[in-house]
């Protein structure tokens, strides 16, 4: 909750500044802008919860057992091979790390860096299964920067490319709110 509030607080001045630079904002426009930020916050939270995590980080946390001793174990040395396991695929893990890093930049409010990272991601790995996530995050980062046009453009691209994606309805709602 605090993290999301932070994001909104970080994004708010940037968005307002961008809006003010384009045209003087009348009072009612500013009000609707505030509502949009709250909505953006909700969509970002949902998006994050639906994005895969780096399993190397996840495992680090899972072994912590609140200081209770005796949780150590030695697993068998005869672990079977799981074919097509993405968590053992170095290339996928590299993509996951790059994506997680860009996501963290957005969390920290480093939106310009996030845009650069995500643009690089989609260029470097155009057929990655994380590309829809990268595109969605890119559109969100543009929106956070106050660049409505680019945000709408990337969201439209996302909707067109991945019509079956469970976040399509959210993308459409953001587009509507940005218009």
């Amino acid at each position, binding site marked *: 909750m605090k993290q999301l509030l932070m994001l909104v607080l970080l994004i708010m001045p940037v968005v307002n500044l961008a809006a003010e630079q384009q045209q003087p904002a009348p009072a009612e426009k500013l009000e609707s802008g505030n509502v949009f930020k709250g909505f953006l916050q909700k969509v970002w939270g949902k998006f994050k919860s639906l994005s895969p995590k780096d399993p190397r980080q996840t495992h680090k946390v899972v072994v912590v057992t609140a200081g209770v001793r005796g949780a150590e174990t030695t697993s068998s040395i005869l672990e*079977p091979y799981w074919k097509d396991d993405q968590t053992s695929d170095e290339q996928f893990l590299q993509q996951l790390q790059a994506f997680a890093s860009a996501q963290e930049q957005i969390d920290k409010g480093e939106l310009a860096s996030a845009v650069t990272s995500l643009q690089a991601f989609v260029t470097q790995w155009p057929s990655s299964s994380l590309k829809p996530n990268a595109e969605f995050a890119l559109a969100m980062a543009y929106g956070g920067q106050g660049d409505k046009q680019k945000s709408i453009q990337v969201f439209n691209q996302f909707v067109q490319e991945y019509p079956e994606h469970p976040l399509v309805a959210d993308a459409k709602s953001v587009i509507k709110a940005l218009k």
Partner: protein
Amino acid sequence: MTLFDVLSADGIRYVVDPNSPYAKVKSDRVDYVQFGRETLKIKSGDCDDLSVLLSAGLENLGVETAVLDVPGHLFMMFNCGLDETKADQISLQQDLLVMHDGKVWIPLEATMIGTSFSEAWAEGARKYNKYSQAGKLHAIFLHQAWDKYRPVTLKPASYSLTVPDKQKVGERVSMEQKILLKKSLDRLVKPYEVMAAAEPKNVTPLMQVAITYARYGLYDAAEKTFEKIQAQQPDNSAVPNNRGNIYYMQNQYDKAIESYRYAEQLAANDPGIKMNLAMANYKLGQLDEAREKFEEAVTIDADVAQRYQGLSKLLSR
């Protein structure tokens, strides 16, 4: 969770303090708060007694806690030690969690002791949000409070306590673990289900869902997912190979070998499948067959010998 279940299994229950209920505490009235050991002895307490008992138990294990004061009631929360940026590893429902000082805290309704940890958590979160939004919640962090009010050291008690029945505790913990495991797995598989929905022709994310279920022992869920993949790609060798792993994990090595052999027919040059055959054969004591498959795998890819050093040692003559 384990502490909550141990205390629940011990028969500790909530009762309203008949003499000085916390709800009636005002400037001219005080409530008696039991020491943890008193609550353990009489196996009951009101909201403040149970919050104190849980906090004391957790602090004793090195887990930071806070007492939550709301109008007419007291409950508690504890720091689960996880960074707030990783909150979704605990729950996808943000309103179940409290973020404080960069960490994820879990609110608990202590009076629900005797029910289940999950229920006490949900109720604690509901109350936290309700009173926090109304600006009527006061969190007292024990470590900060101890700066002002030093913890007391009591004389040794004149009585001893009976350890709760192992079976009763085991049943509760096992049930709660099942619930939390399912929730935890939902968090792990959901992102891959989303990826699969986004690109229905790409079965890789779906395979990840199946592997995750299988690794955590949810074999039926894994099998259902394998069937979906197989319907789309009947010749995908990963399905029989990974299905073989399910048999392997259940010590059904004959069935595992059968499944691996089918996978081998579909992907004759996959050294991993051959390694699986080597391991399953080894488990059955069929060392010659195991060595043969191991050699075949190494012939295809010399690097696998390094990766499967353990097996190599087990197969040495």
